[in-house]
């Protein structure tokens, strides 16, 4: 990667925040997000104590998320955070694909990138936009997490400090988990013709990719290694707090780096 000026990177990333919080379309997305999370906070999280202790919960979670082994979560005294962790871990990556579907493609089609590329390098544009989206998702994760911690503190004030320290770790893990999903959309944006198409391509990537790798590894087990190409491969293990550092942190960071480098190379050589 060449020519990355920190100041311009920060300016481009900051502009993405403005795009979400100061435009009509962005505010609508935030409003929809807020309503969904109000419902999540009001029901599953607010009722987390009874939910977690319910004998049906493990069966329910198994049906919803597969055999993820959530026994460790059941031991957390901060049950709100346990429910939050499960919901956020499985919902944010999908939401991220939708939210980040228009990183550069809209501006490219409109020609706006031609104005930008005379003032910032293409590497700065693609990395800056990635960082902007990451910033947005971090803000959204932080807000929902703080709301959950507030509910936890309201139920049991003595758990506030331990909940806060656990939420820092959860936030870091969640941010790292969504990174390759954002990078995947950065990559798809380099050749898709519209934001909608890039979203469809992402869905196809996961759906068709899983089927193809499933078939290949059924015949030749060695192809199971290709699963590591898919962002979120480690999520099942992370949900039950069973993913090691390499899988929970190393894999998504590596996937992010690879996707961004490929996206940057394609973007640098593409016609604007």
């Amino acid at each position, binding site marked *: 990667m060449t020519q990355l000026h920190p100041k311009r990177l920060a300016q481009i990333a900051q*502009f993405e925040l*403005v795009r979400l919080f100061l435009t009509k379309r962005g505010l609508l997305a935030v409003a929809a997000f807020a309503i969904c999370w109000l419902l999540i906070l009001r029901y599953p999280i607010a009722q987390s104590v009874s939910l977690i202790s319910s004998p049906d919960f493990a069966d329910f979670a198994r049906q919803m998320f597969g055999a993820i082994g959530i026994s460790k979560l059941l031991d957390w005294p901060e049950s709100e955070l346990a429910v939050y962790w499960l919901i956020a871990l499985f919902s944010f990556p999908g939401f991220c694909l939708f939210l980040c579907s228009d990183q550069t493609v809209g501006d490219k089609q*409109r020609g706006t990138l031609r*104005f*930008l590329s005379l*003032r910032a*390098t293409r590497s700065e544009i693609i990395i800056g936009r990635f960082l902007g989206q990451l910033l947005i998702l971090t803000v959204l994760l932080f807000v929902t997490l703080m709301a959950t911690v507030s509910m936890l503190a309201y139920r049991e004030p003595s758990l506030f400090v331990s909940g806060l320290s656990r939420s820092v770790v959860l936030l870091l893990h969640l941010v790292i988990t969504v990174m390759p999903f954002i990078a995947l959309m950065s990559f798809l944006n380099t050749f898709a013709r519209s934001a909608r198409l890039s979203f469809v391509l992402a869905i196809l990537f996961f759906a068709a990719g899983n089927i193809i790798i499933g078939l290949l590894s059924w015949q030749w087990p060695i192809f199971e290694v290709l699963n590591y190409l898919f962002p979120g491969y480690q999520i099942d293990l992370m949900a039950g707090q069973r993913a090691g550092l390499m899988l929970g942190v190393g894999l998504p960071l590596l996937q992010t780096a690879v996707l961004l480098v490929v996206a940057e190379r394609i973007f640098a050589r593409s*016609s*604007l």
Partner: protein
Amino acid sequence: MTVLIRGEGLSKNYGSKRALDNVSFEISKGAPVALVGPNGAGKTTLFSLLCGYILPSAGSLSVMGHKPGSAALFGKLTALPQDAQLDPRFSIAHQLNFYGQLQGLSNAVRNKETARVLELVGLAEVAKQRPDDLSHGMRKRVTIAQALIGTPEIVMLDEATAGLDPIHAREVRELVSTLSNEATFILSSHDLTELERLCSQVLHLDQGVLSEHQARSTSQDNKHYITLQLSQLYDGVETKLSSLPEVNHVYMSQSKEYVIEFEKGADPFDINLLHFCYQQGWHYRQLVNGHTLENQIFNKES
């Protein structure tokens, strides 16, 4: 003269189609430069290469000693790319401020710059509006404004006056003329009269091949030319003009327009020619010292 842009052996292929064919040229600092040619001649391709939007298939291109698109050119080379639009979701001022910010202008300076460039294109009142609230012509002028932010040394305007009404097209021409002491403008347009008024150097592209002309070329190979445009068709104009002692050759370049090749004598030929028109009872419309750009480009006999 300082050479700002140097292209050597530039070619650009789109699949099997060759849009630019081994083009070499130099553009020096100074008066505006025109880029002309029919549709599909390769003008926008050359513009895009100069701005770094596309990469050449062959050849080299240097803008102020740097590769197009490199960070060293930010704020020094600006452009109005053809058909590029601002983001419809943000106000004009917000976007121009952001461009100023990327160019390294401080908060106070970029606010002033936004106001200044909008004032230059006569759109100070639309700063708070969004691009979609503006007419096509106003949007075009706003995109011209973004090319004037800061102190660019090269300003490239691709079809800047296309789609503008005559009054605003004239204002843009005046703007280019006024600012041409501060920056070197490179203009592409189909309006040859417009380019003739503004530019001294003309790069003519046709089917990807480049040739150079001087606007208002008055002489070539020691031959001198005047272009006479009459207000109506008269009989035997070419024969009568040829009878003048200084005249070597006359031909009709288009209806009511004659190109006269003459030799310089003791008396000024243009004054003699006007006397002659008066004597013949011909009403003239325009007398151009040299070839018109249109004739240089399209008339093979010149």
